[in-house]
């Protein structure tokens, strides 16, 4: 019988531990497929953050390292510098990448580290129970912003692609979304491009992926996809923020 669909060889046998309707699973699949398609799996190192994806080292079928909260880009730097022939990527949430680890993110980009960052922007701290993230939208209620994010009090949400776009050595930055199939396909293409740039030694590449956290947001999986489209996308415009390969 013809096989119509099978789990990517880029993922281990271990069942994912994410909540039903969570976008982490979709993005894991896209990364796994990319590593297989580009033939990178057997020389890749995945760096898991602190956050819901802390077990990512258990899921990606390659070498895996679990890093301290926010420090994945520094850990990636250490590995890539001593093993330049390896492919190194970090997988980070918004708390990890844009709050506690902002310095590591900015400086890895500034050094033009030849690594790939997959940034899951779900506008919340999932793992610790739905607290305010640097990316939480204005007015959005979380367990530590019960009255909604108030600009006067918590400031505006951080736009990471826009911030990193100011850094000349960021080679490739794209913001995508996984709220429907066409966008999932676009996200896959962006991830593939980011890894290809690393293979080609181009330097720092990051894909920011607008993702759903139905449990943290306290909505159904379907509503979470709607929230990405209707609430997140207007504030976080999709698109390519830097592409060294496209510039002439």
């Amino acid at each position, binding site marked *: 019988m013809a096989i119509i669909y099978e789990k990517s060889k880029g993922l281990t046998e271990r069942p994912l531990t994410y909540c039903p309707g969570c976008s982490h699973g979709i993005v894991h699949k896209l990364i796994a497929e990319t590593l297989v398609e580009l033939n990178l*799996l*057997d*020389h*890749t*190192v995945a760096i898991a953050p602190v956050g819901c994806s*802390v*077990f990512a*080292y*258990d899921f990606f*079928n*390659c*070498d*895996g*390292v*679990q*890093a*301290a909260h926010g*420090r994945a880009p*520094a*850990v*990636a*730097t*250490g*590995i*890539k*510098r*001593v*093993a330049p*022939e*390896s*492919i*190194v990527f970090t997988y980070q949430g918004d708390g990890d990448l844009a709050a506690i680890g902002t*310095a*590591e993110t*900015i*400086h890895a980009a500034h*050094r033009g580290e030849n690594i790939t960052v997959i940034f899951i922007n779900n506008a919340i701290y999932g793992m610790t129970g739905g607290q305010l993230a640097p990316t939480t939208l204005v007015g959005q209620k979380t367990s530590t912003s019960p009255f909604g994010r108030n600009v006067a009090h918590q400031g505006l949400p951080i736009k990471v692609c826009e911030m990193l776009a100011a850094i000349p050595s960021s080679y490739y930055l794209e913001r995508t979304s996984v709220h429907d199939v066409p966008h999932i396909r676009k996200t896959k293409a962006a991830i593939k491009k980011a890894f290809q740039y690393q293979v080609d030694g181009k330097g720092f590449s990051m894909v920011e992926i607008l993702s759903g956290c139905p449990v943290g947001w306290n909505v159904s999986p379907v509503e979470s996809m709607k929230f990405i489209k209707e609430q997140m996308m207007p504030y976080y415009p999709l698109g390519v923020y830097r592409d060294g390969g496209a510039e002439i």
Partner: protein
Amino acid sequence: MKTLMKGNEAISQAAIVAGCKAFFGYPITPQNEIPEYMSAAMVNAGRVFVQAESEVAAINMIYGGAAAGVRVMTSSSSPGIALKQEGISYLAAAKLPCVIVSVMRCGPGLGGILPSQSDYFQVVKGGGNGDYYTPVYAPNSVQESVDLTIKAFDIADKYRTPVFVVVDGTLGQMMEPVEFKPVTPYQIDVDSFATNGQSGKRGYRNMVNSLNLSAIGLEKSNFELKATYDEIRKNEAMYESSVKDGDEIALVAYGVPSRIALNAVKALNDKGVKAGLIRPITLWPFPDEAFKLPASVKIVLVCELSMGQMIDDVRLALNGSVPAHFYGRTGGVIFEPEELVDAAIKVVGGGK
């Protein structure tokens, strides 16, 4: 052939001789000669040097480099070591070998840049979370700094643990003749743990991790660490002692102050006060053995450039056998031999 070198530079060269493949650091006085030396020497040797954006980033680069299975080193001074503590806890938990040089300055807070030993607790008792220890070498000369730095890399690999080399600012800046002998590094089995992106060649994937959400599982890994620490305690304690039967008092000091204490011991013996010197070379494991003293020794005087930190371990080692007294200066003030002589005479005199 001997060459004249500053302590900090000698430590750097020792790391290169020991096969250190990557150095990650951040500037702070009084250890700047180390990253400065490494920034040229590592690059000239075709190795890796990165000046990180902070000590936090530097120790996590170390975590990455060590995870990839090569010899790595970082250095810092007291406030910087404070920032590295989380990373050191992760390194210990993930059983990653590395060498961390701490050139102690005085605190607390921003404190000052002068030499001090007020960060004994910081390196010996940890500061990162969890049940972990790190071996700590405390040389008292430039040559010993070289020898112990080279040894530190071997001990790190042998026991798969971060290892400290601690000196105070004096030793870092002091110039003495040194010799670098050829090194045969301990052969670590890289394939058994390293996440260097060679799962294809190896035939299996490796994981570096300190997370374990099962109570029984995490307890087991703590027991494994404990077994390693017990081995280190059994095998690796180092000290020097001149205490002999007939001595009335033992002075205890480590690092450069032990050289001042040695002068004080000589002066005491000249004055007819029979004294010896115990110099712990490893601060962890603490050389308890050295404190099994002859019955003639009635008192111990611990001399530190702090308000009294190692004295806690001395007291534990003595286990109440004889009283331990303390003499210390701090803030960057360094005691003179005469001060130690006076302090020793005072305590030996007891109630007289």
